[in-house]
C-alpha cells in the first residue's frame, strides 16, 4: 500500500531551501508589480491562495529562447544545438497547469517527432502539484475534466497546519525519501476538495456545434470589441504557437537561431509572401483561438486544448469570454 505523508507548514521553507540547493525551484509568488507568477525560490513569501495569474509555461517554453548557434568556419558552418538541461522543480502547480504541461508533452515529445530542446528541459523537471481547495476567479476546470492533476510527482493538499503529501511517481517517492526527516508519515487519506468552479462550460457535442457555427454572428460581435492585444494567448498555459528567426552576431558571419512565442491573434500570424494574410479579419483570428482550443485540437489529439484555468477571461481588457461565446452559440443552435 502506498504510504502517505504530512509536511508541516513550518517545514515548507526548509524543504524549498533544501530543494533549491540542488535544482532551480519555481514557486508561485508575487512579482515586482504585484502580479502572481512563478519565480525562482529565494525565501520569498509564497502565494498559495489560488492559481497564479501567470502559468509556469514560460519556463518550459520561454517567450524567447536561443536554439542554435551557427558558427561560420571558413566556407562551412558548425551547428551547435543549445540544450538547456538544468534541474528544475515546479512547486505548487495547480491541476490545470499540469494538464497544460501534458499538452506540451504530447506535442513536443510524442507527436510526429520529438523536440530535443523541450526534452532536455522536461527530463529534469520535478512537478509538485497543489490541490485547489476553493474555486478560482473565472476557472472552469471541472467542466473541462482537468480538475485532477496529471503527470505530477507529488501532490500536496493544504490542511490547517500542514500539507497532505501524496506520492504520485517514482521521482516523487525518491524525493520524499531523500528529505524523509522533513515529512511525517500519516494514516490519513487524501482530503477531497469539495467546491464548484466559478464558471461552467457545457462540453457535450461542443466541437460539432462550434464547427457547424463557423459563421455565427457572435464571432463578428465579439471581434468588434477585441483589441487583438494577444494577451489571451500569452497567458494561456497551453498556447504553444511559436516562430523562429535568425540573427547575426555583430559583423561576424556567426548567427543564432531563436524561437519565440507567436500568437494567432496577431495579423502577421498567417502572412505569406506578397503580404497575403489568410486570417486577416479580427473575426477570423478570434475564432481561430476559440476553435483551436475547443475543436481543432480535439480532432487531432482527442482532448480539448483548453484546460479551463480561466486566465484568458481574466486578462482580457474588454471582457471577451470563451465560455460565454460557446454557450451563446450553443443556445442559438438549439
Amino acid at each position, binding site marked *: 500500500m502506498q504510504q502517505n505523508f504530512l509536511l508541516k507548514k513550518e517545514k515548507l521553507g526548509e524543504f524549498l531551501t533544501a530543494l533549491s540547493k540542488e535544482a532551480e525551484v519555481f514557486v508561485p509568488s508575487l512579482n515586482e508589480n504585484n502580479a502572481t507568477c512563478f519565480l525562482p525560490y529565494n525565501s520569498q513569501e509564497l502565494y498559495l491562495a489560488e492559481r497564479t495569474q501567470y502559468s509556469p509555461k514560460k519556463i518550459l517554453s520561454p517567450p524567447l529562447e536561443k536554439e542554435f548557434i551557427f558558427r*561560420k568556419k571558413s*566556407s562551412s558552418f558548425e*551547428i551547435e544545438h543549445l540544450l538547456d538541461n538544468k534541474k528544475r522543480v515546479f512547486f505548487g502547480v495547480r491541476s490545470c497547469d499540469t494538464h497544460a504541461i501534458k499538452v506540451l508533452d504530447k506535442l513536443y515529445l510524442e507527436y510526429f517527432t520529438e523536440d530535443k530542446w523541450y526534452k532536455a528541459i522536461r527530463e529534469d523537471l520535478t512537478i509538485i502539484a497543489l490541490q485547489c481547495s476553493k474555486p478560482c476567479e473565472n476557472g472552469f476546470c471541472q467542466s473541462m475534466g482537468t480538475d485532477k492533476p496529471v503527470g505530477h510527482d507529488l501532490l500536496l493538499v493544504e490542511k490547517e497546519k500542514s500539507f497532505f503529501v501524496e506520492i504520485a511517481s517514482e521521482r516523487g517517492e525518491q524525493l520524499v525519501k531523500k528529505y524523509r526527516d522533513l515529512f511525517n508519515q500519516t494514516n490519513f487519506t487524501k482530503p477531497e476538495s469539495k467546491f464548484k468552479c466559478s464558471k461552467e462550460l457545457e462540453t457535450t457535442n461542443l466541437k460539432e456545434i462550434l464547427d457547424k457555427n463557423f459563421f455565427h454572428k457572435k464571432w463578428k460581435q465579439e471581434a468588434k470589441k477585441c483589441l487583438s492585444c494577444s494577451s489571451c494567448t500569452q497567458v494561456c498555459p497551453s498556447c504553444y504557437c511559436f516562430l523562429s528567426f*535568425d540573427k547575426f552576431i555583430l559583423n561576424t558571419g556567426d*548567427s543564432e*537561431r531563436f524561437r519565440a512565442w507567436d500568437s494567432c491573434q496577431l495579423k502577421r*500570424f498567417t*502572412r505569406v509572401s506578397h503580404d497575403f494574410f489568410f486570417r486577416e479579419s479580427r473575426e*477570423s483570428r478570434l475564432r481561430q483561438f476559440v476553435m483551436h482550443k475547443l475543436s481543432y485540437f480535439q480532432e487531432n489529439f482527442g482532448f480539448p486544448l483548453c484546460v479551463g484555468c480561466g486566465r484568458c477571461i481574466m486578462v482580457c481588457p474588454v471582457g471577451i469570454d470563451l465560455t460565454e461565446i460557446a454557450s451563446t452559440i450553443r443556445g442559438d443552435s438549439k
Partner: protein
Amino acid sequence: MKELSLTTPALAEIVEVREDTKKIKTFTIKYVDRQKQKRFHFVPGKFLMVSVFGFGEMPISLSSSPLKTDSLQLTIKEVGVITHAMLQLKKGDKIGLRGPFGRGFPVARFRKKNVLFISGGCGMAPLRPVIYAIADRREEFGKLKLLYGCQNSDHLLFKEDLKKWGQTENLEVLLTVDKCTPDWKGNCGPVTTLFNKTEINPDNSIACIVGPPVMLHFVLKELKKHGFRDEQIYASLERLMHCGMGKCAHCNIAGKYACIDGPVFNGVDLAKMPLEEK
C-alpha cells in the same frame, strides 16, 4: 555519422545555380553527409525547411525529379529577406536542410487516369517532380495536360522542360501570361482562360493545382463548373511555417496542418476547410 534529429538542420552544399528568370533561381544541392544524400528520397510535392544561416528558415518545395537522388533541386523566387539572401548564394556555399516534410501528390493513385496540371507562377516548382515521375512511366497514365500561367513570358520557369514536355506524346502544354508583350505569341490572361482553349473532361481525370491563393480560388470554381468532383482534385496550399512538423501551428487550417496533412490536400479535405482559410 548518427542521423540528426528533425529539429536540427543538416548541412548541404550548393553545387550548381541556374538562373531561371530575373528573380527565380534553381539550386542543385547535395548534403554534405554523403550517406544522408544516398538515403535521400521524396514524394513529389513534399518540401524542405531551408536555412540560410543568419537570415532564417523557410519552407521550399523540392523541384527536382524524384528519380534522381544523387542531388536535389530547389527553385526559389525572391520575395523577401530569406529568399533574397538565398538568391545571393553561389556554388560552394552552405545551407541547412531539414525534411522532407509534408504529404505529396499520391502519384500511384493517378495510374491509368488523365491528369490535368494547373499551375501559376512559382507553383510550377512542386509540379515539376510530379510530371517527371509520370513522364518516366508514361504508359501507365492517361492523357496529360499542363496549364501554366505567369506574369509575363520572362517569368516562365523550366523553359527546356516545357519544350521537352510539349513534344512528349499525349502531354499537352498550354501556356498563358497575365501581361502581353509583343514577343509573346500565345494566350493572354489568367490561367482560367486556358480552360476554353482545350477540352477539359472530368471523366477518369485528376486535377493537380499549385499556385497563389487567388489563383486557387478561381481555378477551383472553374473545375467545379467543368464537372470535377472534390475527390478528383489535389491542391497544394502555401502557409507560413516555422517548424514543418505540426508544432508551431502557423499552418493550422481547421483540424489540419498544411505541413503534415498537406501541403497537398485532396479536394474532399479542401471542401471541409472554411472558405476564407484556403
